[in-house]
């Protein structure tokens, strides 16, 4: 077409409605929905169905089209899971270290709080970045809605941020202020534990089959991974003896727990094999397996006889990588899981059958 000359150029932004505003008015509920000329809606890559378009009698789907919507979350969200886990666990460790006044852990406490505040800030930025309307991020604190793990998370994140900031600000203070700082530190620890584990609830509180089926393990996995993350970070950052010992025990526990949780999750999600498919196949399956291996390797590094700085750093890097990859894999697994209608159908049919036969999960 040689130039769309005559349909008026001024009237012609192609917004999917194509209304000449001199003749008609756009004021409906969806009129403010922005639609740019060439962007297709999400899942707009409508796949061409190349088989006979006929539904099967025994195992029907709707042209294999996803029954659910894919998660919208991109890399910022798994990164936030990691950062939240790291920050939260660090705050928890800092609070725990506060208990051991004679352990020479002041530096560790400080560092943990700095990791905490950095993680909370960076994590928060990730969250905002991922929003469709970042300028409205404050709306997260508009209501207090306990049914929404994300809303709870927003309060937890804010709480963790506020208390950590206070604790850091008052870390050198004495007297009442010092106690307040101390107090804030403990509170930050509590918020931190929430921060490190609520994301598991957040992910489990969804209809994506692989996430929903794993909801019992996810908080534990995320908490364990948080422990691994913090330990790994400290392994990389710190060399002082007291820290090393704390980190070692903490890291060992975290890694063992994480690996156990990974296995538990595979089992749980695998109750209906179709549901667990994203953990086995495809990009998410690959990352998931890689995460397991890397975390395992990091554990192995720790168990090697002579612990050197280099080994610790390697173990820390592996632990961090494993933790990041695990979260990335889980986020990534949401997409194929949502895309596969049979995952939901089989999951739910299994549930119905179980209900019928009286066996509970």
């Amino acid at each position: 077409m040689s130039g769309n000359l005559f349909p008026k150029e001024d009237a012609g932004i192609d917004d999917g409605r194509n209304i000449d505003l001199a003749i008609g008015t756009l004021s409906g509920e969806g009129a403010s929905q922005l639609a740019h000329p060439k962007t297709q809606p999400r899942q707009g890559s409508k796949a061409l169905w190349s088989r006979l378009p006929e539904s099967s009698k025994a195992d029907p789907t709707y042209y294999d089209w996803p029954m659910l919507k894919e998660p919208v979350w991109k890399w910022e969200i798994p990164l936030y899971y990691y950062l939240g886990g790291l920050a939260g666990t660090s705050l928890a460790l800092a609070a725990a270290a506060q208990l051991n006044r004679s352990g020479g852990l002041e530096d560790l406490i400080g560092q943990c709080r700095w990791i905490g505040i950095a993680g909370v800030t960076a994590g928060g930025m990730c969250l905002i970045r991922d929003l469709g309307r970042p300028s409205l991020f404050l709306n997260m604190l508009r209501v207090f809605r306990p049914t929404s793990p994300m809303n709870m998370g927003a309060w937890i994140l804010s709480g963790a941020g506020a208390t950590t900031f206070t604790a850091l600000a008052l870390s050198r203070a004495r007297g009442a202020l010092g106690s307040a700082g101390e107090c804030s530190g403990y509170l930050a620890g509590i918020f931190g534990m929430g921060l490190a584990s609520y994301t598991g609830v957040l992910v489990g509180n969804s209809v994506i089959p692989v996430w929903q089926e794993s909801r019992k393990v996810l908080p534990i996995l995320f908490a364990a991974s948080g422990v691994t993350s913090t330990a790994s970070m400290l392994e990389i950052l710190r060399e002082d003896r007291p820290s090393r010992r704390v980190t070692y025990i903490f890291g060992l526990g975290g890694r063992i727990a994480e690996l156990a949780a990974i296995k538990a999750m595979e089992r749980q999600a695998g109750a209906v094999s179709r549901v667990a498919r994203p953990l086995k196949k495809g990009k998410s399956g690959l990352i998931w397996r890689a995460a397991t291996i890397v975390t395992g390797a990091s554990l192995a590094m720790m168990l090697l006889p002579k612990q050197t700085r280099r080994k610790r750093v390697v173990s820390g890097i592996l632990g961090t990588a494993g933790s990041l990859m695990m979260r990335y894999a889980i986020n990534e697994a949401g997409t194929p899981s949502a895309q596969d209608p049979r995952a939901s159908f089989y999951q739910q049919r299994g549930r119905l059958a179980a209900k019928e036969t009286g066996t509970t999960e």
Partner: protein
Amino acid sequence: MAAGKGFFTDTTICIGCKACEVACKQWNQLPDDGFTFTGMSYDNTVHLGASTWRHVAFIERPVALSNQDAGDFSWLFSSDVCKHCARAGCLESCPTGAIIRTEFDTVYVQPDICNGCGYCVVNCPFGVIDRREDDGRAWKCTLCYDRLKEDMTPACAKACPTESIQFGDLDDLRQRARNRIDQLHEQGMSEAYLYGASKEDQPGTEGLNAFFLLLDKPEAYNLPPDPIVPTKTVKDAWKSMGLAVVGMAVTAIGSVLLAGNGARR
């Protein structure tokens, strides 16, 4: 609070004309969803989404309908819409309060509040609500909240030429639906059943404000056979979280104490 309002979509009298889709787009002034030929019978919009709030499914099947003399074949149509669940996953998961329950017992997304976190998207067991990427916010059927406020019928139900989409007070609709089922069963259409008409029918959502009369398995219509609102099962996760927190605390304190003791030793 006014009486609960909803839709009863009787797919046995749907003729697949898509008037509901267009009437919805017209009233709400939504953009198109892309011009893509899908090869999926006569369905080229495929699913509900941010810009498609009514969607007609076309199901060709190698099975005859019991009231029809047309060989081993039938073609089903069904106009899908947001179900406005009694327990709504999107509503309960919405962190901003953008999603609310209205005085008509419907679920409404306030476009001035939504910040596009995308959490509702993974909390809808029907895959209804979606975020439009170029807009950034989540959108779905409002059950014409603006029209309900003026005591008007929602655009889709008003347009529906055969009254396959019926709008009204929920109690009344449910009664109508039950009568219809009885009538169809009497006529020998044993395959007809109600989907989501009550809490008993669908405990996972505690019943739908927009429910359906279907002729095949829900899966054939791309509907879940046993949807559960995540918040109904999330207790498990909160419990685990408690466990995790305890475990974490024990590990942290343990590490600190063990390390401290070790250091002194």
